Each structure stands twice: as C-alpha cells, then as structure tokens.
C-alpha cells in the first residue's frame, strides 16, 4: 500500500469540504442531484483518501483500484472527490452540466480523468464491477474494484444477476457499497418497493455483509479494512445514511433527490456546512 492513512478528523474535514463543493456546483448548474451525493460524501471521502490506490498524475495506471459510481446521478460527489484529489482542476466543478464541460449530467468515463466507468442508468454498475474484477484476477493485478450502489437502485433485477455471478466467481477483489438512505424519486424505498431485509438478501446471494453507520468515519474505515480480509467471496458494505446529510432542509426530504438550491438556499447550506452564521 502506497497510500497514506489519514486521521478521522482530517477525513471528516475533507468530507465537509466535499459537501460544500457538491452544493456549490449543483447551485451553479441550476440542476442536479444533491440528496444522494450528500449521503455518499463520507463513504467517498474514506474511499478516495484512505482506501484507493490511484495516481492522479497517471489516471490510466493499469494496476489502479477502480470505482464505479453505479448510482450515477449522484456524480457531483465523485466529481468533487476527483477534483480534490487532483485529477483535474477544482475550478472545472463550476462547469457541471454545461455545454462543452467534461462534467456531464451523469458520468462519462471518456471525458473525466480518473473516472473508471460511465454510469447513470441504474442497475448496471455491479455487473461491470464483476467484469472488472474477473479481468483483474485474470491478469493477477492487485486492483480492487468498488461499486457504489443506491438502495433504490437494488430494485433493479440486474443487480441480483450480478450478485449471483460475483459469488460464483469468488470475487474477493470486489466490494459493493450500498448507500442506504431509504429514499428514491417517488418517495421512501420502503413504500415504493421495499428492499429490506437488505442484509439477508446479500447474505443469501453469497456475499460477506458488513453493516455500518455511513456517516461514522471510523466505522467506514473499519468496514473497508474488514472487506480486505474477506477471502473467496465478495463483500458488501450496507451503509445507513441520511439523504441530504449535512444540510438540514435537505435531510430526509424526498424532493432534494433532484433539485438545485437557489441562491438563498445555497448560501444557507454553505453556512451550515461551514459553521458560519445563517442568513
């Protein structure tokens, strides 16, 4: 492992900065998906700052770890992570969703340095992760493959086709993270199409299941560390999260799945995140 281990304090501070970036880029774009980006910010911080072996100066390094943001609509979180890691200039974030930008409304691997897969159509990322994990094993690469899923997303049948195949091929270099925020576009997952018991489903499909609080940095770090010890089968981290985490008027409010804050709301959100006086 080449990467430096950072303190929980540092990571929490980084996640806070990431949330500010998410809010300001979606505000600038005047559209986008803040809720699921904010719920995944702590997970993505732990991943990019402590877990992944990647090289911002050499994005195509063959032995790198891979990340698939299968819940692609929440791309501001991965755009912020990649920019903050130095894959591209942080100022590019302000071009999100605009003509000519590398930052498409949903992620395009051909445009964004450091982005390992195109995504946006839900349910497809885990299958792609299975293909990557099989390829990495075939070439005896130490690369680990991380797939970030939403809990609404696992309503897609293809997820379970992929889950079966990951177990069949004993892909212990594959880690799925489910951002369990219990919200989807039309309401609570538990009302629209219940996905619980999520843990029993993954267990039944042959996966090692790790349940955590997805906003507790130490728990996230421990979960990734535990996943590394799993042998002969894939691991899934079920991260309980709050959609819109960090901005009080967005937390657990369904409408903030896919809506941009206006000027006033943006200022309020940034004040909350930065700990300043609210307008």
């Amino acid at each position, binding site marked *: 492992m080449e990467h430096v281990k950072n303190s929980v304090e540092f990571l929490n501070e980084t996640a806070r900065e990431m949330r500010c970036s998410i809010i300001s880029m979606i505000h600038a774009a005047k559209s986008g998906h803040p809720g699921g980006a904010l719920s995944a910010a702590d997970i993505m911080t732990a991943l990019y700052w402590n877990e992944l072996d990647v090289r911002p100066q050499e994005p195509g390094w*063959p032995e790198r770890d*891979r990340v698939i943001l299968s819940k692609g609509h929440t791309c501001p979180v991965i755009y912020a992570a990649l920019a903050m890691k130095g894959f591209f200039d942080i100022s590019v974030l302000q071009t999100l969703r605009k003509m000519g930008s590398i930052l498409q409304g949903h992620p*395009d*691997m*051909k445009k964004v340095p450091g982005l*390992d*897969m*195109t*995504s*946006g*159509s839900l*349910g*497809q*990322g*885990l*299958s*792609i*992760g*299975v*293909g*990557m*994990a*099989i*390829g*990495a094993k*075939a*070439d005896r690469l130490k690369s680990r493959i991380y797939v970030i899923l939403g809990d609404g997303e696992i309503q897609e*049948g*293809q997820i379970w*086709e*992929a889950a*079966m*195949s990951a177990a069949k*091929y004993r892909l212990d270099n594959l880690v799925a993270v489910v951002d369990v925020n219990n919200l989807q576009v039309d309401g609570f997952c538990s009302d629209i199409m219940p996905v619980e018991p999520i843990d029993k489903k993954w267990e039944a499909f042959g996966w090692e299941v790790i349940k955590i609080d997805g906003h507790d940095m130490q728990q996230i770090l421990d979960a990734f560390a535990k996943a590394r010890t799993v042998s002969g089968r894939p691991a899934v981290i079920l991260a309980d999260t709050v959609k819109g985490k960090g901005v009080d008027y967005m937390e657990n409010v369904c409408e903030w799945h896919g809506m941009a804050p206006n000027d006033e709301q943006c200022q309020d959100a940034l004040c909350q995140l930065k700990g300043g006086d609210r307008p």
Partner: protein
Amino acid sequence: MKMIPTRDGFGDAITELAKHNEKIYVIDCDISKSCKTTKYAKAFPERHINVGIAEQNAAGVAAGLATMGKTPFISTYAAFGSMRMCEQIRTSVCYPGLNVKVACSHGGLTPGNDGPTHQAIEDMGIYRSIPGMIVAMPADYNATRKLVARAAEYYGPVYLRFTRDAMPVFYSEDEEFEFGKGKMLKQGKDITLIAIGDLLHQSLEAAEILEKRGISVELIDMHTLKPLDVDLVKASLRKTGRIVTVEDHNYMNGLGSAVAEVIAEEGKGILRRVGLKDRFAESGDYYLLLKKYGMDAPYIIKMVEELL
C-alpha cells in the same frame, strides 16, 4: 453445395482466433451448446464465462472486461442479444465506445419452428439506431469466419448475426471481407438486388432465374448493414436506377430503410423491399416461412418484375 449454419462458423472462428489472441473472452448466457461455443469453452475455460440466463448481466460483465483491455464476445440468441440487453449495450458499451462484441445466433426466421419469441426480426434495426455500433450479418460459413476475425481485430462495439439453420457454403475459404465494404457478386444493368445474410441465397437463386429470362441483374452482398457501403449503393443506383433489397428482418429499419435513405438523398431511383412486412411470423420450417411471408426467390422475382 455444402450446408452449414453460420453459428458454427462463429464457434469455429472464435476457437481458432483465441489461440492467437489472448484478449478474447466468450460470455455465454446458458445456451453455449446452441450458440456453438462449447468447443471454445473446453479449449479456453479460463477465458469463458457463463453467466447463466442473465443477459443484462452478460452485457455489463463484458463492458467491465473491456475496460480491463479484454475483447469479450457475448454469445446468445439475436432476440435476447438485441432486446434483453439493449439498453445495457447502448449505455455501458456503445456510449463509452467499449470493445464488446455481441455475437448472436438465431437471426431472423432461421429458428423457424421455435416461433416468433425466438425469431429476431427487429435486432439489426435496433442496433443500427445506436451510435458507434457496427451491424453485420454474413451469408455463409466462410464469410462468418472472416467477419468474426474482423470483429476481433476492430476496436469497438460490433453486432454480428448468425443463422440457426444451415446455409449453403457459397464463398471460398480465402474470400476476404471488410466491414462496410459490400461485395459486388454480379454486374448488371437492369436491376440491382442488394441482400444481407441468409437471404443472399434466395437472391442468388432469383438472379439466376432472371438472367435466364434475359434480365441483367446486379447482385450485391451487403453483409454490413452499418456502416452501409453508400458508395456502392449509389454507383449501382446510377447504373440500374432500380433496387430491390432483401433481408430476413422486418422490412422497416433494416437494409431496406438504409438503402431507401440513400435513394431519397440521391433524389432518383425506385425501391422495393423484401422482408417481413412489419408483422410477426409463426412456427414452421424456415423455407416454408420464407414462402408464406414473401421473402423467397419467387417473391424477389415478383418485386423485380414490378419495377421493370
């Protein structure tokens, strides 16, 4: 003439190619016996993945392997390879331009007695609509072997369509094929027949009968639907002014439509399209189906006569 299904050409070609190309993977969706990839699976078990009856997953696994520098061939039936995994191929393969091949048996009415559930009549039109996809159907065993080799060499998404039923082996073993380059099989001046895939054989038969009647037929094997050999279509159009397209596919959105676009853009010429007339067929013998649904040599002749 020797008769071999073109799916056998795929199975033989991929097994041969994999000996020299270590990037090749085959992803089966349970039906390897029918898609003729069992020989490959036995020879290269470490590069054979069987995802079971899960075509959407097959598409994703192939996309993932492609990002790791592999050249995966997904093997299934055309109905499933074009429709069950359509959006996965569109979004996770064609949009990022990944090096995935979709190689499908049971094209058109060739799985005759399996009935309409297994007769893919929309597949080439569907894939023709997706940016970046090459769409091809070889007419015989030898053409199949060559086009599978071209697909393995080419970097990017390709859809290949094969027959379940045996087709005459028309081409010699050393005949060369390139995507996007139609084959002028016979020069003529009265009418142009442009055929794709299995119905090339009906077109050959029709051309022979027409020649005996004193009609000068130009015959083209348009094995690649996309990119269409537009130059060849235009050149022939200038000579004959009359084209009959022949395809084992819905007569909408396939070869007939592609050629119609060229004719319309040229602003002159007239066209008849032989194919399934925007309807589902039924279970039955392949040749009886071609006769009933107006896709055989006598029907091609009838269309030619309408134009002369």
